[in-house]
């Protein structure tokens, strides 16, 4: 695999720091709800990584399904079993940060410090010259006086947008550092960080923020590629997946049914066997008298039915 350019490396390292850091924090978090929240951050980070790998569609699908669906499921489960955890409710919220939290914050502050430093002229010059990231620097057309080239070629109002995002990142970290309750604000800082980094990554690799639109045409063809494969080559596994999801849904409903309820509870009526036998006996098609079901005394006599005249054979019918 070819080694990525400086900008791609920076973006990938940022997103992977978010993913691994929040995974570690999720494993070592003191409270279960914090663990689930860091799971959400990890899943969103993986979505950002999918965007970085060129698949915006799968990245957004990941965030929609995982963060929007599965994380909600986990939150419901946590609310359901809350109070029976190993920690009690009257235990105070952790006010000291654990070592993984400190490491996570430190790495992310360093990375965002590098991104913020990219706003400044000397640092961005050295960064781009050393890594060869921006073509303007290699071509020697970068000019310190023009603000349109300050943030890696993003012009005009986009520069202010990118600067505002990075400022929000820094403000998020400052808030997290100043507040005493680390275990709540670290998650907030991580979310702000992830949001900012995702925006920067998407902006750097797409035409949205005015950078080189190398990936824009492939997004449209990527959807058609995925759809072509999903419904043509992989259509049978797709249908099997639908069956599997249906089975999983039914199974989860059956498993999580409240205890003490008979499987055929009062949701539907049981058949009355006496009435059923009566109905079958009274439904004889050869009978000439009609009885109402359940009221054998009420009798209606039908007039005798005359046999139908024989129909003409098809050969004799004139069309």
């Amino acid at each position, binding site marked *: 695999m070819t080694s990525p350019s400086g900008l791609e490396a920076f973006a990938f390292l940022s997103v992977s720091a978010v993913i691994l850091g929040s*995974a570690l924090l999720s494993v070592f978090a003191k409270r279960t709800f914090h663990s689930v929240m860091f799971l959400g951050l990890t899943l969103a980070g993986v979505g950002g990584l999918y965007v970085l790998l060129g*698949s915006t569609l799968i990245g957004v699908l990941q965030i929609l399904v995982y963060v929007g669906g599965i994380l909600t499921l986990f939150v419901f489960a946590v609310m359901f079993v809350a109070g029976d955890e190993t920690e009690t409710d009257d235990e105070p919220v952790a006010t000291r940060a654990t070592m993984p939290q400190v490491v996570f914050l430190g790495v992310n502050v360093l990375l965002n410090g590098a991104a913020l430093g990219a706003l400044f002229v000397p640092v961005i010059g050295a960064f781009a010259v050393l890594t060869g990231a921006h073509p303007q620097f290699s071509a020697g057309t970068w000019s310190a006086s023009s603000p349109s080239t300050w943030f890696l070629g993003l012009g005009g109002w986009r520069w202010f947008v990118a600067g505002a995002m990075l400022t929000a990142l820094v403000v998020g970290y400052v808030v997290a550092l100043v507040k005493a309750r680390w275990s709540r604000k670290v998650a907030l800082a991580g979310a702000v960080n992830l949001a900012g980094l995702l925006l920067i990554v998407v902006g750097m690799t797409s035409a949205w923020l005015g950078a080189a639109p190398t990936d824009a045409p492939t997004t449209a063809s990527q959807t058609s590629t995925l759809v072509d*494969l999903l419904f043509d080559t992989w259509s049978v596994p797709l249908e099997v997946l639908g069956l599997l999801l249906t089975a999983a849904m039914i199974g989860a409903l059956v498993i999580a049914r409240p205890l003490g309820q008979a499987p055929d509870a009062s949701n539907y009526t049981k058949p009355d066997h006496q009435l059923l036998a009566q109905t079958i006996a009274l439904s004889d098609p050869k009978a000439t008298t009609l009885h109402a079901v359940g009221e054998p005394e009420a009798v209606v006599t039908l007039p005798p039915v005359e046999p139908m005249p024989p129909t003409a054979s098809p050969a004799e019918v004139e069309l």
Partner: protein
Amino acid sequence: MSWVTMLSMLLFAIGVLGLLLQKSALRILVAVEFIINAAGINFLAFSHYHQNGDGLVFTVFNIALAAAEAAVGLGILIHSYRHVRTVDVTKSTDLRW
């Protein structure tokens, strides 16, 4: 060595670490989600490397399967919680030797 597969391996390792270290069944399911996502990252990395669309399809399948597994796993968790009134896996020792 590809950076993305290294990330996938590290995330898988963190998931296995969480799977083995946790006492709460809910947090074990959270660690299983990490493992599944690590596999998904691997799928997409190879799809990007070979420029093949099959990896995208399998990533979609991965997401759907993880959803089904999370739903059923949490259903089992809720059902067992009603019997033993705890999510601590070290307390469920009926079938142990």
